[in-house]
């Protein structure tokens, strides 16, 4: 078994182990935490293995493997990673492990909860390692569908409605995406070769411009919906608000990144001409989404809604950066994906902890929580500051890289858009501080909150797991950004 396939196999094995051996919550979480711990260790190992391999391997992807799956369609199980996938895998592993810690006390159907969560993760891991369109699409859908159960069974509030909306919008998008993928597939022999789903083989082909113009928007929208592109983002606030903590974490932290990743890896790479032709249109949407999401977050009353709109804003920024076709902006986009993944996961974890204790997420009802929950409060403030782009945390590095990169575009229109987008940092500060100030600071809003239980060890572990990479990226970004840039280069060359 190769180093990459294990990322899919291990979750599957854990799912099997869970379904056959887990009897109660204790066993279920033990199996999950051990399994995901292994997965996490594997992802750390992968980073080093990648760096080692990269030194001797100059291919776009390393650790490649190719097994014919459906011969007639030329579908292969072909895998490989570059720096981008590696960091995404690491992100997934971290968030997942943290999520399992956060779900330590899940009481309703614990076994099923962990099964769904881990099944979902296998899709995510598979998605990040695939280099075959079809395989990738398969994993993509595997990653989306367990969300329905996760939100629907373990969620709160109008969970059925939210779960349905989320699932349908995402699956609708993936349906659109499938048309795009077919379009790419049937144009992959434009230069006279065989039809193929292999991304890197298609990249050798110049798909006719007319086809690109049709299939780029399909592919782009297909992926961008999960990346919360305006106006297809509305599944995200209600979905996140209803989802249980770990699921919100995983979804906002990892799943929404599939969108940007897909756009980058497929839509832009395979349909470069279409991408250029459509870029202005989507750029305006993305820029609008940045500002719009930020303003949307200001007026929300529910903490999770605030965070969900914040995610819309931050992920639109990712799409915005991707549409800039610039190495720096792209690096920024990927760092932003990472950073947002970690930070938003932290936020959801914290919100979950507050909610678990106070049983409310209404900003107006909460206040002065820091006094009674100092650890959670402190981390909340730190997360907030990191989220609004304070230097020393990953968010700053990501945003600055995007802004500087985007501003390097020679086109005036894009630079003006960049300035518009930059101004979102103020709005971000407003809603973050409003939230932090209201719920963590100020006088205690309710006497009943006086004796809230302090953070437990597993909650602390989960949070610290997430905080460490945030600080690491924030303090020492150079290695990461150089590693990413190297991998971005071939993709950029395709566009320019």
């Amino acid at each position: 078994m190769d180093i990459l396939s294990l990322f899919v196999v291990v979750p599957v094995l854990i799912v099997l182990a869970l379904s056959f051996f887990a009897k109660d919550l204790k066993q279920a979480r033990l199996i999950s935490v051990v399994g995901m711990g292994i997965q996490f260790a594997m992802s750390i190992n992968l980073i080093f293995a990648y760096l080692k391999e990269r030194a001797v391997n100059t291919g776009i992807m390393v650790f490649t493997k190719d097994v014919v799956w459906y011969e007639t369609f030329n579908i292969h199980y072909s895998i490989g990673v570059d720096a981008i996938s590696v960091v995404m895998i690491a992100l997934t592993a971290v968030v997942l492990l943290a999520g399992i810690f956060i779900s330590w006390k899940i009481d309703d159907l614990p076994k099923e909860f962990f099964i769904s969560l881990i099944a979902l993760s296998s899709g995510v891991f598979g998605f990040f390692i695939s280099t075959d369109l079809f395989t990738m699409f398969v994993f993509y859908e595997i990653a989306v569908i367990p969300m329905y159960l996760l939100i629907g069974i373990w969620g709160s509030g109008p969970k059925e409605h939210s779960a349905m909306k989320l699932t349908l919008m995402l699956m609708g998008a993936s349906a659109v995406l499938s048309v795009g993928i077919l379009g790419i597939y049937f144009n992959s022999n434009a230069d006279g070769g065989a039809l193929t789903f292999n991304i890197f083989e298609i990249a050798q082909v110049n798909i006719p411009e007319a086809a690109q113009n049709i299939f780029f928007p399909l592919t782009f929208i297909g992926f961008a919906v999960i990346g919360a592109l305006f106006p297809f983002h509305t599944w995200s606030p209600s979905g996140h608000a209803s989802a249980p903590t770990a699921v919100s974490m995983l979804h906002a932290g990892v799943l929404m990144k599939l969108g940007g990743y897909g756009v980058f890896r497929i839509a832009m790479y395979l349909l470069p001409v279409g991408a250029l032709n459509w870029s202005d249109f989507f750029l305006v949407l993305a820029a609008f989404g940045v500002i719009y999401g930020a303003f949307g977050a200001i007026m929300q009353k529910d903490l999770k809604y605030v965070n969900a709109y914040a995610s819309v804003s931050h992920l639109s920024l990712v799409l915005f950066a991707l549409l800039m076709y610039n190495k720096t902006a792209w690096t920024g986009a990927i760092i932003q994906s990472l950073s947002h993944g970690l930070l938003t996961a932290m936020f959801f974890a914290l919100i979950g902890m507050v909610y678990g204790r106070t049983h409310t997420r209404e900003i107006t009802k909460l206040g002065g929580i820091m006094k009674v929950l100092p650890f959670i409060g402190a981390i909340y403030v730190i997360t907030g500051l990191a989220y609004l782009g304070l230097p020393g945390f990953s968010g700053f590095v990501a945003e600055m890289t995007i802004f500087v990169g985007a501003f390097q575009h020679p086109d005036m229109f894009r630079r003006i858009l960049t300035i518009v987008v930059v101004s979102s940092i103020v709005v971000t500060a407003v809603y973050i501080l409003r939230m932090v100030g209201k719920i963590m600071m100020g006088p205690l809003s309710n006497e009943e909150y006086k004796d809230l239980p302090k953070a437990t060890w597993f909650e602390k572990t989960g949070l610290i797991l997430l905080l460490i990479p945030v600080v690491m990226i924030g303090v020492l970004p150079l290695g990461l950004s150089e590693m990413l840039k190297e991998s971005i280069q071939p993709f950029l060359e395709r566009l320019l």
Partner: protein
Amino acid sequence: MNLESFLLMRSEIGLLAILILLIIFEIFSNKKQKAAVIPFALVLLAINTALGFLPLASGELFGGMFKTNALLYFFKTTLSLGVLILLLQSADWLKEKVVDENKASEFFMLIISSLLGTYFMISAGDFLMFYLGLELATLPVAALVAYDTYKRVSAEGAVKYILSSALASGAALFGISLLYATTGTIYFDSMAEILTSSNLSILAFVFFFSGLAFKISLAPFHFWTADVYEGAPINVASYLSVISKGAAALILMILLFTVFKPLIEVWHKIIYIVIIATMFIGNLFAIRQQNLKRFLAYSSIAQAGFILLGLMSVDNLGTATIVYFVAVYIFSNLGAFGVVQAISSFSNKENINDYEGLYRTNPKLSLLMMLALFSLAGIPPLAGFFGKFFLYTAAASQGYYILVFIAVVNATISLYYYLLVVRAMFLRQSDTAIPYFRSPVYMRLGLILAAIGILVAGVYSPIYDYIFSISNTFLN
């Protein structure tokens, strides 16, 4: 004609033998032994199915009236396997309700004879055999629909079915007669050579097509479906939705790809419209159903629309994707119907509402139901996903992207109503949930077989590759 070539009809002879054995059994068994017919028939059919995995040569018999080739043979085996699963799932129902009324062996006889008709229909080399096969496949089922003789809905359903199908076969027959008028032959091969596009041949085709469309339940020829499924015993509805629909889809494809190839311009347009209408109608009606049989009826209508996508690609690809999808669809639908059957025979409950909280009492059944529904909806890594995706591929290969787009939109709508059932089973909790029960062994076997099909048929690619490799056996 020697014995060896005669054995080309091995599948049919097998079924005929089973039929005769069953009749003999019925005649010579006393009242107490009647119940033994269930294992007896199952074993016989299992043997016949197992024999179906032995290779068989291609060839023609009776002056071209009977054809067989690897694809047809594969398909027959699949159908046989489907019927076996279906009978396993019905065994419990038969034991409890039917044996008492002393008509269990007749049930088998009717199913087997209908299956035999299906075989002859798809193996037909001329319109007469086709027509007889069609009727042989249809008429026993009409009797089966009425099998719940004490239920009004069953009787009503049977009436609707027999009369509607009489009209449909009348229309098809009229179409065949007009085709005969334009070509002077009832043999497929010679007709394919002679047939040209003319007003009359088109009209004849439309008449003929309506008859098959009726069997496949394509809009606007589908209306009987929901009522008949609802009225019929669950296993009969299941039979209608998988076996007769699948076989009809196959023979429609064969005829369109061979006999009606000269009319390809015309039937492509017709199919295009029909696909869209069928998918929308099936989906929109399915959304608001409460009765699961009715629900699955509409779902199967929508699925029929998907099957037809493969027709847009008149080549290996189209053939293979259709056959593959039908095979996958058989497993998925049998899974879904099997669960409905299991629950209905335990609790007599068939409504979606009744399924609320099912997961907490019967996790395995709920899980299988979810797998089956997700497979129907086309969620990976279940077989249905591959089936659907390949059908899209087939349609897209001819540039019908808009059609594919409409199809994916419909797939999303269909996901909605499949999720409604999942919602009831998993998300809801209910005090009146169906309590835990353990299904009898036949039922479990039937369900497990269906589950294996759902899980394996997609991921395990050699199945599709095999189908593809044999799918050109009837195309030139």
